[in-house]
């Protein structure tokens, strides 16, 4: 009815049902859809009349850019701070950092992003950072990074708390191992012991936690894109839900799920290479 509008009558309805394949049983419809998907055809939206895969192809790079930037940011802060913390467990710095990360853990991303916008875009009045300020990378890459900055920082804060906590407890445990005492007695510098001897075994744990982090990462990604109107997959998904564009919802859910499963698989593969003991267990 929505599609036909004024041309709605029983003949046209039957014709449209035939065009859309709605006259076939639901199981058949499902297998037809799966068949199309396997050929890389996710269908065409009834609402916007744009093909689902072109929408996804336009949105996906933005998600990837956000994930890469935010994860680099999170790791760049988490690794040095965790090392500083693990140097003197239960020292004043460690207590402060642990309490801080615990507090951050309890602040959901949708609150972080709202307060960042309130502070940076509204109070400080920095241009290009608020909602709907998105500029594509091709147009102006500096403005692009500016428009994604608050989003990336929000996602990075969520990932940072996880990485920091995992890495810190792992490093504290590793630093009590005998090979660390051995390295210390050889007179190696503290920095060298930390990076070469303690961090390398802990990096496996870090990789493991990165793949656990994906759920939280997606939630943060969706929320941030929705709030700042950044046209990534999360934004497209929520707008598709609001306009009842089910074919687009289906397509995005499929792509995101397959993506997550693939990423998990790749991480498991990398972990096996970095630490061959795991596959033997």
């Amino acid at each position, binding site marked *: 009815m929505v599609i036909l509008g004024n041309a709605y009558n029983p003949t046209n309805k039957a014709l449209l049902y035939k065009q859309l394949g709605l006259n076939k049983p639901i199981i058949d419809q499902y297998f037809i859809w799966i068949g199309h998907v396997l050929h890389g055809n996710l269908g065409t939206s009834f609402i916007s009349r744009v093909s689902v895969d072109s929408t996804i192809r336009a949105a996906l790079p933005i998600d990837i850019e956000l994930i890469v930037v935010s994860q680099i940011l999170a790791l760049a802060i988490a690794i040095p701070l965790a090392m500083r913390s693990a140097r003197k467990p239960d020292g004043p710095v460690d207590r402060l950092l642990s309490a801080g990360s*615990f*507090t951050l*853990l*309890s*602040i*959901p*991303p*949708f*609150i972080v992003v*709202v*307060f960042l*916008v*309130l502070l940076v875009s*509204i109070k400080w009045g920095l241009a290009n950072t608020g*909602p709907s300020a998105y500029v594509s990378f091709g147009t102006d890459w500096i403005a692009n990074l500016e428009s994604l900055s608050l989003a990336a920082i929000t996602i990075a804060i969520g990932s940072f708390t996880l990485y920091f906590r995992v890495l810190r407890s792992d490093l504290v445990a590793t630093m009590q191992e005998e090979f660390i005492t051995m390295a210390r007695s050889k007179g190696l510098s503290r920095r060298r012991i930390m990076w070469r001897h303690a961090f390398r075994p802990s990096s496996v744990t870090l990789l493991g936690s990165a793949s656990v982090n*994906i*759920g939280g990462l*997606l*939630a943060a990604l*969706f*929320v941030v894109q*929705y*709030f700042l109107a950044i046209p990534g997959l999360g934004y497209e*998904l*929520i707008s598709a*839900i*609001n306009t009842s564009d*089910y074919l687009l*919802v289906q397509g995005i*859910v499929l792509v*995101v*799920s397959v993506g*997550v*499963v693939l990423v*998990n698989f790749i991480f498991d593969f990398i972990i096996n290479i970095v630490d061959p003991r795991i596959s033997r267990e």
Partner: protein
Amino acid sequence: MSENYGEIVIAEYGHPQVEKPEGREPLGVLFWICVGWIGLNLIGAIFANVLPLENPLYENFTAINAAPSLHHLFGTDEIGRDIFSRVVYGSRISISAGVGSMVIGFGIGAPLGMLTAYRRGHFDTIITTVMYTLLAFPAIVATIAVLSFWVPRDLFKIIVVIGIASIPIIYRIIRAATLSVASRDFIIAAKVQGASDRRILFKELLPNVAPILVSFLIIGIATVVTLEGALAFLGLSVNPPTPSWGNMINEARSVMAQNPWLVIFPSLALCLFLLCLNFIGDRLRTHFDVAEVKI
């Protein structure tokens, strides 16, 4: 005196047998403050319509966008609704979503995890394979996908969807925890004595798994409250005008430059609630000396 002397000698040989008066790490004052805060929130949520609060839907056009004052403790929004009363009523949605879906998740996931870890065999292999397959699928996407098709959305549907989506992870945690207990000597001893399965599950396994269960239950509730908040923020939870912490923040977006109180109070309520829950869960885990469950 001589007894004390003996103890010190033992301690010097590297086996400090001297029992500390409190074997477990004390819970601390902060823990009880957190428990008190959660209790206060619960009382507010349960008795919201008995307490002397303004109607959260009442639009008082004579007091629009009022700043916090004695009359309106947290101020009013752009159509004159009392924010304090909306925050208190909003806690109902968040808390019942958190508790309700964890009742479903733990109600199904925990018994299943204990049973498969105790029985092992084909049953365990099948259930575990299914659960691990489900775990590979991102729960947040599944939740959003189901909620997008299952309209109109209400609290009950949200509880059911999140509850079911949480079963695999709960199953994994409880199964791992039970596995580590099930191979211990006292379980074997009970089996040799001819204790029934039911007795072993309830009298031997359950008391040992319970601390892990309780601390993860609390952390689970915190996680669901966050998730419900995010869904509400995205407009996928209960429909306005029913207040929830998440949709209050969402609704305040358009006016937050003029009236930041609208965002600040529900955010503060949510963050404090989560911080206390996380702290309680974390403290209980160290208190019961739960070794990190390998997941």
